[in-house]
């Protein structure tokens, strides 16, 4: 069903779009990088964060456990309940030993990086690369493997979304100012009505989280409750 949702907040001296009409059924949920390596405090980046950046690890894993992961699960349940698409975008190498990365690229340097001992892009088949089990991805849900922060830069997601008649993209996941923000900027710039659910996202600090969600370039930011309240009436 079509209906208006609040869009941009007022800004002094600027023209803003204060509400925008959307078709509720043309909405998909995109969950970004909610993988074991990124959300399990004892695996993936966890040990390095705890040993070198203890305060950061404490903040990040608490935020995930008490805020972002429950909210992401609630969003997933809502979208499934209303038979709307859920898409999982996951980071990882395409080829073992990073042979898919250009050798001159900073990513290859990051992959070879010895100083932290933490590989960020995991090889195919790695157990920690798997989606966080509680999300239980289903066979009829797209799982897109990407080598970049945004799936728009290393998958055909744009094509899939248009084929699936998706006009509105709701985004949650990690990191708020990393993969989430980059994805939201791409989606918004390409004309999707893009909403980041900020309390279903997590970053390494409040400063990082704010950097990714306070400003919204061609996308808007809502809380989970706002999103469900505003989208709910339009998805019947």
């Amino acid at each position, binding site marked *: 069903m079509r209906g208006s949702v609040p869009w941009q907040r007022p800004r002094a001296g600027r023209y803003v779009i204060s509400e925008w009409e959307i078709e509720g059924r043309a909405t998909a949920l995109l969950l970004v990088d909610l993988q074991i390596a990124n959300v399990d405090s004892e695996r993936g980046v966890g040990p390095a964060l705890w040993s070198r950046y203890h305060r950061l690890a404490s903040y990040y894993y608490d935020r995930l456990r008490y805020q972002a992961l429950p909210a992401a699960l609630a969003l997933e349940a809502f979208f499934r309940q209303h038979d709307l698409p859920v898409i999982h975008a996951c980071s990882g190498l395409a080829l073992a030993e990073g042979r898919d990365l250009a050798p001159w690229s900073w990513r290859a340097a990051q992959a070879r990086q010895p100083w932290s001992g933490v590989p960020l892009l995991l090889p195919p088949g790695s157990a920690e690369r798997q989606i966080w089990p509680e999300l239980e991805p289903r066979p009829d849900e797209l799982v897109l493997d990407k080598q970049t*922060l945004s799936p728009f830069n290393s998958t055909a997601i744009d094509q899939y979304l248009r084929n699936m008649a998706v006009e509105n993209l709701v985004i949650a996941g990690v990191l708020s100012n990393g993969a989430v923000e980059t994805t939201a900027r791409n989606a918004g710039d390409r004309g999707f009505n893009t909403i980041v659910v900020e309390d279903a996202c997590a970053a390494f600090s409040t400063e990082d989280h*704010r950097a990714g969600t306070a*400003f919204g370039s061609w996308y808007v930011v809502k809380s989970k409750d706002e999103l469900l309240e505003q989208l709910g009436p339009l998805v019947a």
Partner: protein
Amino acid sequence: MRGEIPWQKPDWPGAVPWLEIDSDCLGIVVVDVQLSCAHPEHTPGRPRTDEQRELFEAWTRRIEELLIPNTQRLLSWFRENGRPVIFTCVGSLLPDAQDQHPKRRLSWLRPSPDAPPYRSPVGSPGYAIRPEIAPLPGELVIDKNASGAFNSSPIDFHLQALGLRTLVVCGVSTFACVDGTARDAADRGYNVVLVEDACAGSAGSEAAHDATLYTFGKYLGAVKTTSQLLSELDALVQPRALAGRSGGD
């Protein structure tokens, strides 16, 4: 010539502290330094309150005292060293902005209360690049109709054809079009240096400008001042003038 330059601070496990770059595969992208975006007398949205006026004057100073002179320094280096120079310009390709996505089209066509339409279509006077940093014949000027060049222009095709691997990016506005372009370049694997004192946001958007520099320097690429960058690049190459050759067609 290849050499290592400082890259990112080791603030998190994925930081890359030093990176080897090849000056033979280096280019500069100057983003949207056009009259309608980056000239105090041509940009719309006249300040009405004292606070807005102060912010507008601060923005004007940044553009005239930092952005333009530093962009000129960067362009001189790239031209003297025969490296590709690329400009992007933001605007609608069609006069009624039909080529833009609906929200952007609405924002573009809708004038602010006491100013002309916010942005200018291709070919209009406001679309032109500021004359102080004008492209030379043979330098690539890429039209785009959204914030990020990789979403809305063939820039990637051109960068690959030019064999570029490391990009220096500057221009306006830091948070929207510069971030959009630099971020996607870095995400796609290019080694990207954002030149912080050759970038400007819009008036009153210092927090957003700072957020871009913060996030970019952490997760995507390097952030440097013009002086820092030029001294590192000079150490990498012998400056030479290549008569008759300029970057890209």
